[in-house]
């Protein structure tokens, strides 16, 4: 299904506030100097007028810290030492998601549901099912944007239920799915689209698509043997400036590694999962002290091979959507585009 509507910009806050009565509303909000996705209680808190958020919205589907289960070690309790699942998450709408980040959700979908009940990640899938994704097209992509390299576009609709296009004082609202339509049903604000706005949206889209630079090629990577890429001398120099700080993994819309830890106060506790990072040496260190990836080079290589080689082998797509966050945030200016260029030689 596809349906075009329009909504005045001044009516967006009202629409979001109305939605908060039905479900959790997550949108870009200002926190200090940063723009980050977070829950809003009033639609006016949403900041849709800026470029992309500092961190990807993956936190809404795969929280940085998430309760998995609860337990008690109280000997008097009948269920002592047994794990109890947490309650189901609430319905939510993630509003103002850029098309690259929405494409990132589709990559997470592959990881968290690898087929067969024993490989379905309950926590992610429960949230995913209850989530509506409202996208916001990018009128002015940044110099670090390279979504077009992976079939994306500043107005791509993959992974979205609704796409908004900023045409000045209004948004053109493209309803893409039944879920999207259900969110707008009975809401004040959206009205029938006028031909002028539709035409303007078309022009904006065209110029934005043109402005995304021809990005990076990954076509040769899949054909190379794992060990050929692993032993490539390019890693000997590429990793040198990397500090293994992990900002690339935390800000990435597709990085999904996590740790599981128990936390308890007295007899009451929770089993948590927390984001983890392949940049950290503890990530792989065995109980014996042996570490299969003991050096910075090992860990640097792992991240890029995972995203562009291993993930392609396993899922037939690379685990990068070209959002450019890792390029913008890296303290030592490592550019994923250069690394991939070396890998794809």
């Amino acid at each position, binding site marked *: 299904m596809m349906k075009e509507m329009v909504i005045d910009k001044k009516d967006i806050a009202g629409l979001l506030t109305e939605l908060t009565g039905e479900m959790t509303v997550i949108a870009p909000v200002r926190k200090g100097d940063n723009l980050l996705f977070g829950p809003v209680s009033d639609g006016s808190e949403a900041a849709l007028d800026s470029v992309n958020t500092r961190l990807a919205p993956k936190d809404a589907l795969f929280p940085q810290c998430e309760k*998995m*289960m609860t*337990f*008690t*070690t109280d000997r008097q309790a009948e269920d*002592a*030492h*047994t*794990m109890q*699942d947490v309650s189901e998450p609430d319905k939510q709408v993630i509003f103002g998601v850029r098309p690259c980040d929405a494409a990132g959700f589709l990559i997470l979908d592959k*990881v*968290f549901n*690898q087929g067969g*009940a*024993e*490989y*379905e*990640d*309950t*926590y992610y*899938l*429960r949230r995913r099912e209850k989530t509506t994704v409202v996208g916001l097209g990018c009128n002015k992509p940044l110099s670090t944007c390279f979504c077009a390299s992976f079939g994306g576009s500043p107005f791509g609709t993959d992974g979205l239920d609704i796409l908004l296009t900023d045409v000045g004082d209004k948004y053109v609202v493209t309803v893409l799915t039944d879920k999207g339509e259900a969110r707008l049903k009975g809401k004040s604000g959206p009205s029938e689209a006028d031909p002028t706005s539709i035409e303007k949206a078309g022009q904006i889209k065209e110029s934005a698509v043109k402005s995304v630079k021809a990005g990076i090629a990954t076509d040769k990577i899949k054909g190379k*043997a*794992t*060990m050929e890429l*692993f032993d490539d001398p390019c890693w000997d120099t590429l990793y040198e400036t990397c500090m293994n700080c992990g900002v690339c993994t935390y800000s990435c819309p597709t990085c*999904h*590694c*996590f*740790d*599981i*830890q*128990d936390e*308890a106060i007295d007899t009451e*506790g929770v*089993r948590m999962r927390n984001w*983890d990072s*392949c940049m950290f040496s503890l*990530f*792989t*260190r*065995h*109980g*014996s002290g042996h570490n*299969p*990836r003991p050096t910075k080079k*090992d860990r640097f290589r*792992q991240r890029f*091979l*995972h995203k562009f*080689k*291993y993930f392609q*082998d*396993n899922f037939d797509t690379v685990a990068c959507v070209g959002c450019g966050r890792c390029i913008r945030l890296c303290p030592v200016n490592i550019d994923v585009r250069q690394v991939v260029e070396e890998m794809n030689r």
Partner: protein
Amino acid sequence: MNNPYIPKPVRIEEIITETEDRSLKTFRLAFLNKEDEQAFSYVPGQFAELSIAGKGEIPIGIASSPTEEGYLLFTVNKVGIVTSHLHNMSAGEIMGVRGPLGKPYPINELKGKNVVIIGGGFAFTTLRSTIAYMLANRSEFGKITVIYGARTPGMLLYKEQLKEWEARNDIDLNVTVDKGDESWSGKVGFVPTVTKEVAPSAEDAYALVCGPPIMIKFTQPVLIKLGWTPETIIMSLENRMKCGIGICGRCNVGPKYTCKDGPVFTLAELNELPKEY
């Protein structure tokens, strides 16, 4: 929706101290709920996450065989937070088991073949499972040869079981120690050396090799020299794990996840992968 992260409650039925240095104990666990026991259908070579509320989880190979009904055996080395706590627990206490996880030994492929089991140290756990399974289904397998080594007689696992196997004439058991003592009348020598002596034939056979890296490093060339191909040498890897179901990202060896695609791999498969284990 079935939640694969929730451990099923089990009771510790018995704790056996295996080694003289008390670093290895075997835990006999029984499910509290019959339906959990029935759902836990496993094959030798698989592992499970042992869960202790408030401490965490650890991936441990299943040492019992599915032919031993009513309980699970796990032999645990005391190294970290969870294992140290486990070593201090007592029979009767409640903990959790999540699994079975991972790809088992290719038992169906082994059927009708001669099977050579080569193990060292505390990596003998899933090999014990395999031997117990084969002996319970003895007619389905060809000749069974076992080479098992430990540092000292006191460091051998499953001593009672080894005696029982020793007494049988349908299994060729070769137990060796690096260093004997006055009570030891068996073989003395490293596993690769004993493998050379025993010289298991590669004909119509599979070898399951599991042990410390140094043992594996020196045993492989012995087998290759005896005419074994990398396709018939089967190994089991260990890596740090959390989720156990191919998601959390840390146990990968190249594109393969030790937890989901392994822990069992053939040497031929491992030859194509980085040595990140």
